[in-house]
């Protein structure tokens, strides 16, 4: 089971990745909530950026993401993406 500390760490790393990839300023990313929309809501997050985002998530969290797992739901909101990462970290 993911501990609160692990979740907090995942949250920090994921915000850092989004900041790095989308060149967003720190305050904007810090203000993301679970409901903040990602794909389709952030113009910076185009298809190429999605590919970079997933690869960077694989690298920094040491997980593998398969083609079938990449769908609109997973990238719909910040909360959904964080939940996906947490679930994969717990499983691995």
């Amino acid at each position, binding site marked *: 089971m993911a501990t609160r500390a692990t979740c907090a760490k995942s949250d920090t790393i994921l915000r850092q990745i989004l900041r*790095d990839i989308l*060149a967003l300023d720190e305050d904007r990313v810090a203000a993301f909530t679970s409901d903040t929309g990602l794909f389709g809501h952030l113009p910076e997050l185009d298809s190429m*950026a999605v*590919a970079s985002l997933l690869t*960077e998530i694989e690298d920094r969290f040491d997980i593998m993401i398969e083609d079938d797992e990449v769908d609109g739901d997973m990238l719909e909101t910040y909360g959904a993406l964080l939940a996906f990462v947490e679930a994969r970290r717990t499983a691995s």
Partner: protein
Amino acid sequence: MTGIWPCPLDGHEYWFGSDRGRMARLLILPPLFAEANRCRSLLTAMIRQLDDCGIDAFLPDFPGWNESLAPLQKQDLQNWRDAAQAATDHWQITHFLALRGGAELCPPALPGFTVSPLSGKKQLRSMIRAQTILEREAGRHRRSEELLQMGLQDGLTLAGFQIGPAMLRDLLEADAAAHSSAEELTIDALQLSPPWLRAEPGHDPAQAEEMARAICARLGRKLIFNTIEV
């Protein structure tokens, strides 16, 4: 700060840098493919800063890169490794600085630095993933494995880059981004917000200055140490 260099594979290629016959001579091996475009501004600004620090730095085109007229789909990693070695010999390079996929091209006998080295295998995975997303948006559902198999036969266009079967095979097998004698400079140590991840290329003179300062400090130490050893 620009010129043509005698790249052995196709006769001549463009280069950017400073050559004032100084003791420290740095070959820059940039990230590959789309990541190269995102870093070019940073690297050219860094070269100007290195010039001010007394370091000669060279950012050459290899066949299929940047201004090169050579077709990218005819290239493979070995071509580029040969070009890196030829550039090293041509300019009497003393050290390399390899970023991301550029780490796959480091001349084996040369000391140097890597920044977030990326293996060919991981590079290819990311590029094929981007293509599967683009294909899906166009209403075609192709899996990564399917695209790869097609590419190994006929080549693939990935994010606008035409990659031939030989390059795909090389990238698939390239898993040795870590250079045994290279010092890895971390993005934290360089206080770098990774420009190769940026969706749009940016211009950040402060980061270029920070990178140049870090390299000057390390190269200065190495050169002094080598002189004492001799």
